[in-house]
């Protein structure tokens, strides 16, 4: 930021936090959206990212299992392609 280097004012932080809250529909929908405290919001964001990572890991686990059956039958791949379009 051009005004202050090295230390952002609290007001700016609050502004950015509210911007983040607006940009994250999921993040604000989980709670009552009244938790405008910056610290809580950041913590929730971190937790949310971690849970998303975990979900992706679980899904890739499942996908790798399912993929082994896919390799045996190549026509299935085309079916799946058409399913996803």
């Amino acid at each position: 930021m051009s005004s202050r280097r090295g230390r952002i004012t609290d007001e700016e932080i609050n502004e950015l936090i509210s911007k983040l809250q607006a940009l994250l529909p999921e993040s604000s929908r989980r709670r009552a959206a009244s938790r405008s405290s910056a610290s809580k919001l950041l913590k929730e964001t971190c937790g949310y990212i971690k849970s998303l990572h975990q979900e992706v890991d679980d899904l890739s686990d499942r996908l790798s299992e399912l993929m082994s059956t896919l390799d045996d039958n190549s026509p299935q791949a085309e079916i799946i392609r058409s399913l996803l379009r």
Partner: protein
Amino acid sequence: MASSSSTIPAAADERDRKRKRAGDETETGGVKGRRQEAPSRWRTRREHEIYSSKLLDALRLVRAGRGPSAAREVRQAADRALAVAARGRSRWSRAVLLLASRSRARAHRVRLSSRAPAPQPQGRRPSMDASTSSSVSRSSSAPALARKAQELGRLVPGCRKLPFPALLSEASDYIAALEMQVRAMAALAQALASVAPSSPSPSPS
């Protein structure tokens, strides 16, 4: 982009349509040059389709079924496809691609030098690995907010040293992209599970 949506009576699709329309409105009203930078673009059906096809292509290359490393390779392929879908417009996507190419080059070099199967150091989260090596530079000098911001910077790849506002926008984009990744992978898993024939369990060679 006309919001011509197919008539699929799904709640998620309705939400997608609303998001897309909102995105379009801001698009035409706002700056034309900055199209598709809002995190809401990850909610459009088009992005979902693009990512799904990329994911499918990437997964074809992953000869899965080889055991414990398969899930990790799937995860890495999914992350790479996600980063490519971002079209280089966000810092985290560039970092993911950089790390992917670097770790792959490293693994290749290791494999060439010594023919022993080199155990990759937790390739699941390359970003976490790189960030934990460089220890915390400043402790709680600022209030707890700085610590939380640091944690956020560790979670989002390639955003450790970012100033606060940029970190927040990167994080929001990253979260939206992750949500789409989850949706796409879940849909793919569901499709695979329904399509998978009633064949006996595959015998690993």
